[in-house]
């Protein structure tokens, strides 16, 4: 016997399955919100000038989500702040590779490149 609801044609047996599937998707999204909480914690630390704490939080995000463009971008800003330019450049490039259309990351990287334009020394031209 078909378990069909009134006039809609929905099989009642499948309804819980659909519901469970939707819940699973939401739980997955919300588990990434725990990492998002770490991202936000890092941002709050950075706003208070606690850059070592911010770096710790964002590195923590990357341990479980190595493809987090946000964490790579934020780490790049932190490394810039600390004068670690090679590390900053590396993180910006990874962030852009992961999220090439993100205008904020592009803006950060553009400003970074402009500010730290390499110094030309005449002697270097011969090397």
């Amino acid at each position, binding site marked *: 016997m078909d378990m069909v609801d009134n006039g809609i044609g929905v099989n009642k047996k499948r309804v819980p399955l659909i519901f469970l599937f939707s819940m699973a998707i939401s739980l997955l999204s*919300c588990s990434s919100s725990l990492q998002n909480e770490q991202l936000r914690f890092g941002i709050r630390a950075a706003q208070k000038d606690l850059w070592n704490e911010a770096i710790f939080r964002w590195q923590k995000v990357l341990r479980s989500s190595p493809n987090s463009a946000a964490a790579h971008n934020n780490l790049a800003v932190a490394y*810039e*702040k600390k004068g670690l330019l090679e590390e900053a450049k590396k993180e910006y490039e990874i962030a852009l590779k992961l999220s090439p259309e993100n205008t904020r990351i592009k803006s950060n990287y553009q400003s970074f490149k402009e500010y730290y334009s390499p110094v030309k*020394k005449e002697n270097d031209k011969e090397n």
Partner: protein
Amino acid sequence: MIKKISFAFLVVLALHFSCTSFDYQKINVELPGIATLDIDQFQEIVISDFLVEKETKDFDINQELIDSFSTELSKHFLGKISTKEMSWEEKDIFHKEDFWKSFVPDQEEALILTGSVQYSEEIRKAILEDHSSISERHYPTKKGLAQRKFYTLILNLYLIKAKTGEVFYTRDFKESKGYKNPKQTAIFAFFDLIETVKGKFLQNVVGKKKLAQRYLISE
């Protein structure tokens, strides 16, 4: 039953989207300057006249550059800052070591700051149109002309060792800025642009810190 399922589904959707929204925070960051040059090994910086490739109408750009760099360097450089006049009979002498070795012959431990400058003004126009839909328009379509004054400063800077005449540092700057105000004067625009140039120059030369804006992102 259908209402309960729909409600539950909506709750699930809301949870899903609330967990995946993007957020950006703009933050002011004081960035450290990275001094890539050791200018403290020199006892003096001599600022020469600049090669002005295009004369400015309302002000003496050469003198403004000399005053600007003189003031700024004196805040960061421990040695003496001086100036020396120069006539630019030849334009392409930045790499002529013999010339620069004899420029300040009594000051072997000096660094010479020189360069070339171009400053230009242009007016850019754009047509404005009202793109609101016909149903939203209560007035006839507006068309107008927007006008901006754009100023561009091109400055090629050189630091040259007085003892050997060799170029110690060189960098090319090109800064532009547009202004809505039609009465914006060339000299005030120049002050805006030279501040940007000085910031970048000093960041390399003396490691001057700079306040910058960056975006921090949460997913």
